């Protein structure tokens, strides 16, 4: 999959680029609205990620212009909550999603995935790791072919883990994705939720899918 990211803050662009590369995306990354517009117009991408405030052409005008040219590539806008008018404008002028800064790159990637699967109900709605199967559309989880009942929180957590196997997540990150950042990171929400999840998916296994990482959080292991 190929993405175009237009973001003027170089270091944000850096970690976004790294995140996408680690998740197997290829793409172009540029820090200038005018260059971004030319790239979006001339090359083919699976998804465009545009910051709203940009030097040169801003994100919204890029979006408008490419839509006028008949390019229907999905677009995710990067915004701050205070730019709400612009956000609404963005959705009206054809953006498919938005993400508020500051964000974790995994969140952005998850959004990209969910945009991708809009077009394709069947295959990309299915996540499979080892003997675990997760259907995002029907919200069903199969362990060794048998369904397991998960709560909403547990389901969201597992989906996030399965989306990024082998990646270390801090509790804060998990909390923000599954709950949101208004929760106090000192709570035991994550730990209890992980424990419950383990009980449901690790049955009859020697080691757990979800590995604790000392002082940090958790990592989802690909077990065979």
């Amino acid at each position, binding site marked *: 999959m190929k993405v175009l990211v237009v973001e003027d803050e170089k270091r944000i662009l850096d970690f976004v680029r790294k995140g996408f590369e680690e998740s197997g995306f290829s793409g172009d990354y540029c820090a200038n609205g005018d260059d971004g517009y030319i790239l979006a117009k001339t090359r083919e991408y699976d998804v465009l990620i545009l910051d709203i405030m940009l030097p040169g052409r801003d994100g919204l005008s890029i979006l408008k212009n490419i839509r006028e040219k008949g390019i229907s590539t999905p677009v995710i806008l990067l915004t*701050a909550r*205070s730019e709400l008018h612009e956000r609404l404008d963005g959705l009206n002028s054809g953006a498919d999603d938005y993400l508020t800064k500051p964000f974790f790159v995994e969140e952005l990637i998850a959004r990209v995935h969910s945009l991708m699967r809009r077009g394709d109900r069947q295959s990309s709605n299915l996540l499979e790791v080892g003997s675990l199967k997760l259907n995002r559309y029907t919200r069903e989880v199969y362990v060794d072919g048998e369904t397991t009942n998960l709560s909403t929180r547990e389901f969201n957590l597992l989906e996030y883990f399965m989306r990024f196997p082998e990646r270390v997540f801090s509790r804060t990150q998990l909390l923000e994705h599954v709950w949101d950042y208004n929760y106090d990171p000192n709570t035991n929400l994550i730990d209890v939720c992980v424990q419950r999840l383990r009980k449901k998916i690790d049955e009859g296994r020697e080691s757990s899918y979800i590995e604790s990482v000392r002082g940090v959080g958790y990592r989802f292991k690909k077990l065979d």
Partner: protein
Amino acid sequence: MFHLRKSFRLRIALYSAFISFIVLISVFLITRWLLSHSNEKKLDSDIRAIGLRQISLIREPRFWEDLDNVYDFLFETQYHRDQVMIFALDKELQLIRKTNELPPELSFDKLPFPALVKRDDEDQALIEKRSKRLNSERRFGYESSNFRYYSGPVSDPIYLDRYLSDESWRLGLMSGSREYLMVAIHGAALKSELRKFETAFMASIPAVLFIAGLGGWILSGIALRPVNKLRSATQTIQSRDLHQRIPIEDEDHEFDDLIQAYNQMLERLQRSFEQATRFSSDAAHELKTPLAVLQGSIAQAMRDAEAGSDNQALFSEFLEELQRLKAITQKLLLLSKADSGQLDLQKHQMNYSEAVENLLYDIEILAPSLNVQHSIQKDIYIQADSDLLKQVLQNLCSNSIKYNKPKGCIDLSLTEEKNHIHFRIRNTISSSESIDSSRIFERFYRGDQSRSKEVDGVGLGLSISAEIINAHRGSIRVEHDQKGWITFLTILPKNSCLS
């Protein structure tokens, strides 16, 4: 309970009554003084009239016996018989005629009678002529009623005030050419008039005071009308609509100035409020980019660090602190947007029931010792900004845990009623908790100050919740009962786009 508040109107009413009272009393005193002065004059002139008449009749006994007629004739029964005493004395101050018993304390020696008046030849001739005429009239058997003896010239009276038999008398001392005369009129004789005047006056005082007070009350009411108008206008002005001005509609120029000054103050207030709001909004906004850089870079560094290493743990800790920064930045931004009335909502259909069920899941994890009860109606959907509404739910939920007592209770309910959805969260609170229901939605308000230190948070949660609910055109209420329960009730319209 009635308690006396300082009242401008009451004060004005009292002042006007007081001023009227002072004016009334001074008018009374002056009038009374004038009246008693003229009474004295009248007494004196009556004394003089009686004296002039009687002195010429000293030697005529029958005139002394028929005094009543004389008085009737002279003064039109103005004086009572007892109120007048007349004593005639000869040259040696011996009593020769009297109308009353002599009061014991009266001794003529000590009275300053004027000196006897000398008769001149003309007087002598007149006396003789009169005497002759009287004799001739008697001979013919008639007397002219207005006939006067003439006993010679008479001195001007000397007037005195004396107490006789413990009563006040006005004395007039006169002297003729051969005898002295004293006329005394009772001091009370003319007082009745004065009494009447005094009574009338006293009776009128309460009425006058009442009318003055009432007048003051009404007038001050009229005077306060523009102030009241200003007050009611002020009450309607919230921080949201500081741009409002009080209209100046043909007010008197004094109030014109007041309203103008007030409007100017509003304008300054608006300007500085907007600046403050813009500042916090800008600041929060400006913070977002560095926060995003920091968070992205630290997350990257954490991923790159060796799994389980100290560095990774350190980065994770950084992320945690960053999380707090993000949360408070977000809250400040939200509040400053709400203050400037720009809290826009990203509304879409959301499953309210599911959000509350998730909340329940969290409460059970966060506070396993609490007894949680719930009645959540299934499949309630609502048009709302789900990010914000979830924030409200979380705020209420974490409050109900934070301020609960050990092994307390939480009671959640979500019900749909007509066009509104009620979410109620009730919980027990520790008895030491003091809660000011009127201030609970204020920013940075936290229940018990001493306890607050143990409880995490900055005291923005409830004020943010209230702002979010208001932006959804809903309402949030708090009730605190004596049994140690506190209830938060949020009411949201099902479809706030329509309302």
